[in-house]
């Protein structure tokens, strides 16, 4: 895991090939990383152990430490969902079937949920609002998204559906 962290730290510094191809940074910026162990200690180690030691770096923002899990999977899922959404919305307008409508409602709500959650996590921070309010805010985002999805499914089932709603509105 520490090795993986080191790799990720490296890929931020130089053009190492990432999952989506080489990052074309052209040396635009560097992320400074401060080794946690004192240099005198690591210099006494053989080079292979030195690499392991310097991989225990602290990112510059302490909040990142609190997320003990790997964010990469979530990030990748967000991008894939974006692509799916970009396909589903036109598809639902061309072939207005109920299954596409429900799938569009799900994709839309999930995309919007992740976006609003990111906004809330960014601005409603513990250093400004204390310990309890940020957690309540994230809970409220979940409640809002669940309510939105439920409401949209109800709307598709009982009322005209999302695609028809837009088409009827546009006919005004």
């Amino acid at each position, binding site marked *: *895991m520490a090795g993986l962290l080191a790799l990720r730290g490296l890929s931020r510094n130089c053009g190492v090939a990432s999952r989506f191809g080489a990052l074309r940074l052209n040396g635009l910026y560097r992320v400074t990383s401060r080794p946690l162990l004192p240099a*005198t*200690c690591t210099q006494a180690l053989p080079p292979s152990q030195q690499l392991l030691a310097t991989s225990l770096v*602290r990112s510059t923002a302490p909040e990142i430490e609190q997320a003990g899990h790997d964010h990469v999977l979530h990030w990748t899922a967000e991008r894939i969902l974006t692509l799916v959404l970009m396909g589903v919305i036109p598809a639902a307008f061309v072939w207005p079937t109920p299954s596409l409508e429900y799938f569009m409602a799900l994709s839309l709500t999930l995309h919007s949920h992740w976006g609003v959650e990111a906004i809330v996590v960014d601005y409603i921070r513990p250093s400004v609002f204390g310990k309890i309010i940020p957690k309540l805010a994230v809970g409220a985002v979940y409640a809002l998204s669940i309510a939105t999805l439920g409401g*949209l499914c109800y709307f598709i089932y009982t*009322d005209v559906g999302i695609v028809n709603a837009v088409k009827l509105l546009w006919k005004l």
Partner: protein
Amino acid sequence: MAAALRLAAKGCWAAGPRPAVLQGPLVTQWTRAVFTSPSVAALKSQSAEDYWAKNKRLRRPVSPHLTIYKPQITSMLSITHRGTGLALSALVSGLGIGMVVLPGSYPHYLAMIQAMQFGGGIIMGAKFLIALPFMFHLCNGVRHLVWDLGYGFTLRALYKSGYLVVAVSVVLAAIAAAM
């Protein structure tokens, strides 16, 4: 060579005991590294106090940022992407939750709006104002995905793609409003 090895085996006594992850033979260390992650507590033990708590304790002022930084197309488009996303999300949530809470059906409320008999220009303007955030968020979203593939980070490319996104958004929104 032997002295260096002995030093490596003993570790640097002056700095205190070596963390568990650096003890033992190399094979053990590598195995440990692959299957464990450095605990947050281990990382934080290097400096026990939180960054924000420490600076609050020292009563240090925060440097001005939003109040002094010149608005640039990079930052303005970024916050607009966030803002349009938030607005569209409010629209979607409003539709979903609203149509559950409100008593009437969707055609009923459409008929109410139709009864207000807005002029053609106002209706077209309203359609443009609804379509613009959606088109901007779509176009800038594509710009984001291009960045995620690794392209377009030079300053020229940022500015060019930024202006392109704004132009395409306006054109697409105008087309949508005309439909």
